[in-house]
């Protein structure tokens, strides 16, 4: 790694620590239901309107059904909005109704905090759909994840009521949205707008370009349909243009929660590589910090709520170590460049005038360092925003985002989902340690017994099953193979990446796969929905089981879960599960690509 890459990584981690601490402390107050009186008064009005009683703690079953009902209504609303947008206001570009399969995929995607996008935002969605549908779900899906994390943390913290009460879902989602997500997003949006991220309701602008641009486009027949040659390939024709359409829109307001909520769905198709979404180096840094802010803060929240900050530090340390290793792998892989270009005389060395390395698919203004770091951050967290094209990463560089997602999105992970995913692994680590030393496993004074282990096993196995079975279906089915633009190992990587991203609720893509088809829209929606909610349900069940248990005192025989030994055990457990599940699939994709490229 270059010194500038090390410097950027160090700056990022220091700023993250400084910002995450106070946010984590405030989140702990919300988790403990200690809200200042003036906030309570504002909340009381909302609870009265909704007819809910926030002081009534719910059994995990009620909590889960409230969560599922809330998200199902959200999905129906987003679907309806897309299908009706042609007849609704705030549609200056005259966007038509979104196709049913794409609307279904997008509705599930945004509700599940995935934000996989099979469409191009600027040529598909009206401003109303972007704001009232997609941006609103960015808030609610993030709040849902944090609410589940709160429920699990309370499960550890409570002394044992025997009833399995984990909190009130409606109060959790209201407080997190109102007092954390909205205020921070507002500040971020104002800063972004100040830096040049656009925020308007203007019609798209038609501007003259400095040069005439020549390009090829599919030729249409007399019936208006694209012509195809004898081999079934589209017939192309030469064309020129002297104008360009500049898409406008309320971008800054959506950009802020897109990052803060680890949602990742861009206003534009190019996402954070687009200069209207990510115009400056400062915005790029702030976007990266926003992605990790709440996942890191929740580690401190965890420590505060369970009454032992060392526990929070241990989880954060495990996440940080895995993240730093990922950055150390991806950055040199991209800096090494493409060996096939060397014989052609292409200078790929970094220097004062160029970033060097593999610059295909990267913004020149971000270079190797900021693009590689962004790629690691966005896939370590379940964000999925991109400031470069992951399809153009080197094989090893592309494998890093894949692996980070395949570890279960626990390396910081999504807002809430990162913490509850990591705590599930922590309980598994404690269980493994218990097996080794012949003692009943116990984490934070709560015994981990048969029921909990069954639930933990389900939670851990849901996503690998979805990824591997989904990939198998896609590479067998004709409709799945039809979307591959790059046959061979890279095409397999594209499909594996799509299913990995969907089932782990990341949302980024190896963009070479044509996935806006009924087959992929359906398959990926299935993976996103089950990857989100079939994971949340067992986690809530674990929370309920733990909340019912008495918290046992620490004794001399208690396994310490705050030291380097446990951090190592936790990292080992995460890596072991991930590698056992995915190494064969990785061998067919990026590993083969790497061996072919560097043979």
């Amino acid at each position, binding site marked *: 790694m270059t010194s500038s890459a090390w410097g950027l990584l160090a700056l990022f981690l220091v700023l993250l620590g400084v910002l995450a601490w106070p946010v984590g402390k405030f989140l702990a107050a919300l988790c403990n239901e200690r809200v200042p009186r003036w906030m309570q008064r504002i909340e009381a009005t909302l609870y009265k309107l909704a007819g809910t009683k926030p002081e009534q703690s719910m059994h995990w079953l009620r909590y889960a059904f409230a969560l599922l009902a809330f998200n199902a209504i959200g999905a*129906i609303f987003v*679907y309806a909005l897309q*299908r009706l947008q042609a007849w609704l206001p705030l549609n200056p570009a005259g966007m038509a109704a979104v196709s049913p*399969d794409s609307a*279904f995929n997008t509705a599930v995607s945004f509700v599940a905090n995935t934000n996989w996008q099979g469409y191009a935002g600027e040529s598909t969605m009206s401003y109303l759909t972007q704001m009232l549908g997609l941006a609103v779900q960015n808030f609610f899906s993030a709040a849902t994840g944090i609410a589940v994390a709160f429920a699990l943390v309370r499960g550890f913290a409570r002394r044992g009521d025997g009833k399995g009460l984990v909190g009130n879902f409606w109060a959790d989602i209201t407080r997190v949205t109102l007092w954390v997500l909205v205020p921070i997003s507002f500040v971020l949006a104002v800063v972004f707008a100040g830096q040049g991220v656009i925020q308007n309701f203007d019609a798209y602008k038609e501007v003259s370009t400095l040069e005439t641009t020549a390009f090829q486009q599919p030729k249409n027949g007399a019936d208006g349909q694209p012509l195809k040659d004898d081999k079934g390939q589209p017939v192309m024709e030469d064309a020129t243009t002297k104008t360009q359409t500049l898409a406008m829109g309320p971008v800054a307001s959506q950009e802020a929660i897109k990052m803060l909520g680890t949602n990742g769905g861009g206003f534009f198709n190019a996402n954070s590589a687009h200069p209207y979404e990510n115009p400056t180096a400062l915005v790029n840094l702030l976007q990266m910090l926003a992605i990790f802010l709440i996942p890191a803060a929740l580690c401190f929240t965890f420590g505060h709520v369970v009454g032992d900050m060392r526990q929070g530090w241990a989880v954060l340390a495990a996440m940080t170590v895995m993240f730093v290793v990922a950055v150390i792998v991806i950055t040199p892989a991209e800096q090494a460049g493409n060996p096939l270009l060397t014989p052609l005389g292409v200078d790929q060395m970094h220097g004062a005038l160029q970033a060097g390395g593999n610059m295909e698919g990267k913004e020149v203004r971000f270079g190797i360092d900021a693009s590689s770091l962004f790629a690691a951050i966005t896939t370590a967290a379940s964000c999925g925003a991109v400031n470069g094209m992951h399809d153009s990463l080197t094989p090893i560089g592309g494998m890093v985002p894949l692996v980070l997602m395949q570890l279960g999105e626990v390396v910081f992970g999504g807002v809430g989902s990162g913490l509850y995913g990591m705590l599930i692994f922590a309980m598994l680590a404690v269980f493994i340690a218990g097996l080794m030393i012949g003692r009943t496993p116990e984490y934070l004074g709560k*015994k981990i017994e048969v029921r909990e282990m069954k*639930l933990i096993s*389900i939670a851990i196995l849901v996503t690998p099953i979805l990824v591997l079975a989904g990939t198998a279906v896609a590479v067998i089915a004709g409709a799945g193979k039809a979307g591959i633009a790059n046959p061979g190992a890279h095409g397999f990587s594209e499909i594996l990446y799509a299913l990995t991203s969907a089932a782990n609720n990341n949302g980024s893509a190896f963009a070479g796969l044509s996935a806006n088809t009924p087959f992929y829209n*359906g398959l990926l929606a299935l993976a996103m929905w089950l990857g989100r909610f079939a994971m949340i349900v*067992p986690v809530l069940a674990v929370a309920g089981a733990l909340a019912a248990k008495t918290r046992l005192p620490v004794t001399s025989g208690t396994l310490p879960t705050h030291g380097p030994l446990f951090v190592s055990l936790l990292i080992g457990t995460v890596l072991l599960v991930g590698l056992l599940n995915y190494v064969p699939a990785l061998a067919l994709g990026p590993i083969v690509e790497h061996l072919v490229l560097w043979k």
Partner: protein
Amino acid sequence: MDIVWMGALLALWAVVGAMVVGLNRLDAPKNPSSKASNAADGASS
């Protein structure tokens, strides 16, 4: 087509809803004695 995709959403919801009910039964103690599982019965780490 809207009915088909809304039906798919309903089916997905039903799968997860059934999972909640199923895991709640898995979660439920099968006999009163298991309520005492919190007691320090035997070696504890």
